[in-house]
């Protein structure tokens, strides 16, 4: 089957092209953050000046810390609440369970533009207003469905007999959960947590509508900078972000696979 071989090689070549399409712009953007010319002129001249000037940009540094803090708090809250909800959805049968599960999809499926503007209106109306608290409220809500979906997937591999066995050996509900169930679903919980961190750290649209000049996150700050004009400093901070979020997702992929194998 000569044609089959040729087609297979064409297929492989096509995948290489696709990867080029996906990664080239990112690589070029990263390369430009090490180029001396402020107008992105070639030939390429190596420098780390843009990273150094980044270090002195107080506004960006403040926004970065906000982003990190919000992402960490979002991760902690949404992982805890999401895991609890997943456990309940796994353990108990009750009317309306299907409905509760269906409710998880609107936050994922509705465009963030709509969710973000709706939050802005509502938070303003009830007096929460804009700012870091509003952003945190929004991020946790966006991350929760992802955590519940991921942890529930892991729970599907859990044998309920283990809980029964622990119970019949005299363990109470709390002990069963902490000593039997939680250790088993831990890879799912960690993967869910990493998802939550990524959702929050990369979130732009919702943060954009909920931020005020002093209280903002890194992506919002970058958007403002891009609209003023391109500078290699934006390339530098973008490169850092992309490296961080890709590393994070590689980590998630590892944990998620642990979930599948065991």
């Amino acid at each position, binding site marked *: 089957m000569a044609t089959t071989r040729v087609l297979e090689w064409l297929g492989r070549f096509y995948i290489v092209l696709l990867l080029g399409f996906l990664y080239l712009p990112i690589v070029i953007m990263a390369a*430009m953050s090490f180029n001396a010319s402020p107008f992105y002129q070639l030939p390429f001249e190596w420098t780390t000046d843009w990273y150094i000037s980044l270090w002195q940009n107080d506004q960006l540094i403040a926004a970065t810390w906000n982003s990190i803090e919000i992402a960490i708090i979002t991760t902690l809250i949404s992982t805890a609440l999401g895991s609890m909800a997943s456990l309940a959805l796994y353990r108990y049968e009750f009317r309306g369970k299907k409905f509760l599960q269906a409710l998880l999809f609107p936050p994922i499926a509705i465009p963030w533009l709509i969710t973000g503007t709706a939050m802005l209106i509502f938070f303003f109306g009830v007096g929460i207003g804009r700012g870091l608290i509003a952003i945190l409220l929004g991020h946790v809500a966006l991350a929760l469905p992802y955590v519940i979906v991921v942890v529930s997937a892991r729970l599907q591999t859990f044998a309920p007999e283990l809980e029964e066995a622990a119970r019949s050996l005299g363990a109470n509900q709390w002990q069963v959960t902490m000593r039997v169930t939680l250790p088993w679903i831990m890879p799912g919980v960690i993967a869910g947590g990493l998802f939550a961190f990524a959702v929050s750290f990369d979130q*732009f649209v919702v943060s954009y509508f909920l931020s005020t000049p002093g209280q903002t996150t890194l992506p919002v700050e970058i958007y403002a900078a891009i609209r003023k004009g391109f500078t290699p400093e934006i390339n530098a901070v973008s490169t850092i972000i992309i490296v961080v979020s890709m590393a994070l997702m590689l980590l998630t992929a590892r944990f998620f696979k642990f979930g599948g194998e065991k």
Partner: protein
Amino acid sequence: MADQRAIGSRRGLRPALPLLLPAYLWLTVAIFLPLSAMVFFSFMTDLPLAGKEWAFTLGNYAAFFSQSLYSTLLFASLRLGLEVTLWCIVIGYPAAYVLAKVLKGRSREAIFLLVILPFWSNGLVRIFSWAMVLREGGILDTALNAVLPFKINIDLMYSYPAVIIGLVHSYVPYMVLTCYLTLQAIDDSLIEAGRSLGASRRQVLWRVIIPLSMPGLIAGAALIFVPVVGSFMEPRILGGRTGTFYGTVIEDQFVAVFNWPLGAALSFILLAVVLIILALAAPVLRRAA
């Protein structure tokens, strides 16, 4: 699986409530109440804040239907969504097929991860990276002029194609992911059976492979179409003055013009359109599940 679950599960909402309540309360406060509030505000003349006068009105919706600007932009956004979705199918489906049926073992795993990885990195940053490539004197311009014997000017920046390229780049991994999952589930023996019964490659593709992978195609299309119709950051950065779409008009109402009730009405109309599209896609998806 079903009877296995029955051993562990217990009846009643009451014991489940303490575990469920925190998460669902949070979702109510931050998602469901805001969406309801948006519907409410869209019928008001002004925000009921700081003693401002307000009354109920249908004016915000009348504005949408009386001024052709808004419906024109909504159609422009729907067209943008359609075009981006089609490009994602054209580019993503063959890649998903190669991943599912040609590559094997570790190299498949590694390349699958490589395709999905950019999707989980910051969307804003990836759109910005295209600005580096597409602007005049940018990389595409320089590279093509270095290779080609004649002088051409590539200045795609701030144009409709630039917006399409940026959005396709952002969303094509979705299509690869959903199509890969359904293509991988197709039994190879079905394809071999078709071939040995005398069907050509093309016939097998159109009669066996594409119909069986339809749920993945529909799921990917819905997952891409919906956010693209609501996109505003991508057209702003890559489209410049040509990048006015429905999403950017909504953004303006909230951050520039401060006509929130009109913005709420426009958002709600978009939400209705989105829900209709998701409802149309739902039966196909349910059959797949």
